[in-house]
């Protein structure tokens, strides 16, 4: 596929042109950090930050989403009958998503399309998006994405890979899919980059990957049995500091768990899908009062067993972590997945 060279001016124009056809989404500086937002007309994505504080998963898996509506009015002929909420999925282009985050959304898709069932809320939103990723030239000190089957230039989940071209504000745009091609056309990008561009991108990729000093290994975890890892005697120590908040699960781009809640407003109501976290006791509490994960360390253990073992065993596609480092940076108690992985991998 083609690689375009986009200078600063064409970039601004191109985004404006593509905004005629696509709803543009990009990182925006909010208060003291970056988050993905739908861009206003003329608003440019702020591509100066390394990572958004929350992952972009909310674009396909919102914090709270109305799934269905209902009436409980006995006079309504449709009383107590669930109706699918009307939803629109405008064509979207997500500008500046990091390659490992795009890979993370592919991991979410494995969960939401499991062969037997498809979650339409996730899939419709996902399919509507063209992922225009931005390669990471200067990885953060907590980035360990290359150990996780992805990396700063990973193309797996992307439709277009943007690479900062060196000159101020210029990009190379590597078109990876038809979807990506369509977006580039809508943006009017047409100037193909010079013949040495692939070599240049390859070199930048190598530099970026080499700049990543943080690594994890899970080769021994793969070989150990679930029970060996689960019953290991380190968990209470490993999890001691954990306060069982949902910070890691909500910041994580691959954490997919959710809750379903009904809310009533007079005789009408909605059924909502909300983010949920395996860190909470309520997550697994039985109606009888019995809780299979009653103790705090059991919940911490679940999170890491899921990411590093259960997922890996189930899908055979590596671990349920893309090494973005958000949980490491944001954890109030310094629970560090890299350290836990090392403990499990001994």
């Amino acid at each position, binding site marked *: 596929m083609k690689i375009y060279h986009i200078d600063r001016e064409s970039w601004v124009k191109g985004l404006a042109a593509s905004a005629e056809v696509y709803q543009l989404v990009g990182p925006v500086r909010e208060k003291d950090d970056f988050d993905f937002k739908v861009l206003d007309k003329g608003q440019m994505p702020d591509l100066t930050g390394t990572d958004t504080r929350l992952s972009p998963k909310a674009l396909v898996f919102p914090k709270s989403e109305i*799934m*269905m509506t*209902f*009436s*409980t009015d006995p006079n309504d002929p449709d*009383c*107590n*009958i*669930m109706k*699918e909420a009307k939803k629109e999925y405008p064509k979207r282009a997500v500008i500046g998503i990091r390659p490992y985050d795009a890979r993370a959304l592919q991991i979410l898709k494995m*969960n*939401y399309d*499991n062969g*037997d*069932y*498809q*979650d*339409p809320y996730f*899939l*419709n939103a996902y399919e509507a998006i063209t992922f225009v990723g931005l390669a990471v030239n200067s990885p953060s000190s907590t980035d360990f994405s290359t150990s996780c089957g992805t990396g700063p230039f990973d193309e797996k989940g992307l439709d277009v890979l943007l690479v900062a071209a060196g000159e101020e504000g210029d990009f190379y745009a590597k078109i990876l899919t038809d979807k990506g091609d369509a977006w580039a056309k809508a943006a009017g990008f047409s100037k193909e980059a010079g013949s040495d561009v692939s070599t240049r991108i390859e070199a930048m990729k190598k530099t970026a990957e080499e700049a990543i000093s943080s690594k994890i290994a899970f080769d021994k975890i793969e070989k150990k*049995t*679930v*029970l060996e890892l*689960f*019953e290991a005697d380190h968990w209470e120590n490993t999890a001691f500091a954990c306060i069982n908040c949902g910070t890691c699960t909500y910041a994580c781009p691959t954490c*997919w*768990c*959710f*809750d*379903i*809640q*009904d809310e*009533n407003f007079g005789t009408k*109501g909605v*059924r909502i899908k909300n983010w*949920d976290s*395996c860190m909470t006791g309520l*997550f*697994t*509490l*039985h*109606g*009888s009062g*019995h809780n*299979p*994960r009653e103790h705090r360390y*059991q919940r911490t253990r*679940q999170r890491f*067993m*899921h990411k590093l*073992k*259960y*997922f890996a*065993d*189930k899908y055979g596609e590596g671990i349920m972590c893309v090494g973005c480092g958000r949980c490491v940076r944001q954890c109030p108690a310094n629970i560090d997945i890299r350290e836990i992985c090392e403990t499990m991998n001994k």
Partner: protein
Amino acid sequence: MINPYVPYPVTIDDIQVATEDKSLKTFRFVFKNPGDEEKFSYKAGQFAELSIPGQGEIPIGIASSPTEKGFVMFTVFKTGKVTQYLHSMKVGETMGIRGPLGNWYPWDTLKGKNILIIGGGFAFTTLRSSIKMMLDPKNRGDYGNIDVVYGARTPGMLLYKDELVEWEKRDDIRMHLTVDSEAPNWNYHVGFTPAVTEKVAPQASDDTYAIVCGPPIMIKFTLPVLEKLGYKHDHIIMSLENRMKCGIGMCGRCNIGRELVCKDGPVFTLDQINLTPKEY
């Protein structure tokens, strides 16, 4: 794309108090839309989400048998927000059912085999479905001997009493009913389910499978009995319960290890369960 979260609308067709303490009621539902019953085609051992708008959903084993047409049946223990509300509902009211969900007892494997069913308390629902299915004249020939050990605290706490009595009279099924202690007019076994199992269960063989469903305490004491009788772990079949929301393998809370109780289960062999963390 079919939206797996949208329940089929059903009408409550019949409500029966199922136990003497009134903590369980049996609900019969009829599908409102013609065609939905066909889509809800299920096998014994599966469950469904009973869905009450404004209250929530609860996963409940299907108590009716696939051989029973025109309705589906569930027996529900009153415990949380949704079940409390369900117990207050009336015949004729509308609600939803989502399913069928999960796997079923391995009927293909069980063809031609002897079957020992061990049930306790109100976990008898999918077992009732199974017995009813196997006893159907069209199916009875597919299975060997059927032994049923079913125990409850008192005679009044046994589910589906009329049917139990009926089955008791048949010669193509051996019923071993028991209650925890002596009770007036009780002519069957007295004692806990594991002890009765030890007395009456058929010896293990390659052609004999045990299906165990009951409260944790019953399971805990029944498994050693089965082992003593020589039942191999791949011949012991169990149905697990965990907190669930989606029922379709997505919301992430019901896992035991990599298995999701809602989608990969609820039915597992003891062999499979032994490989997973005991988080149920």
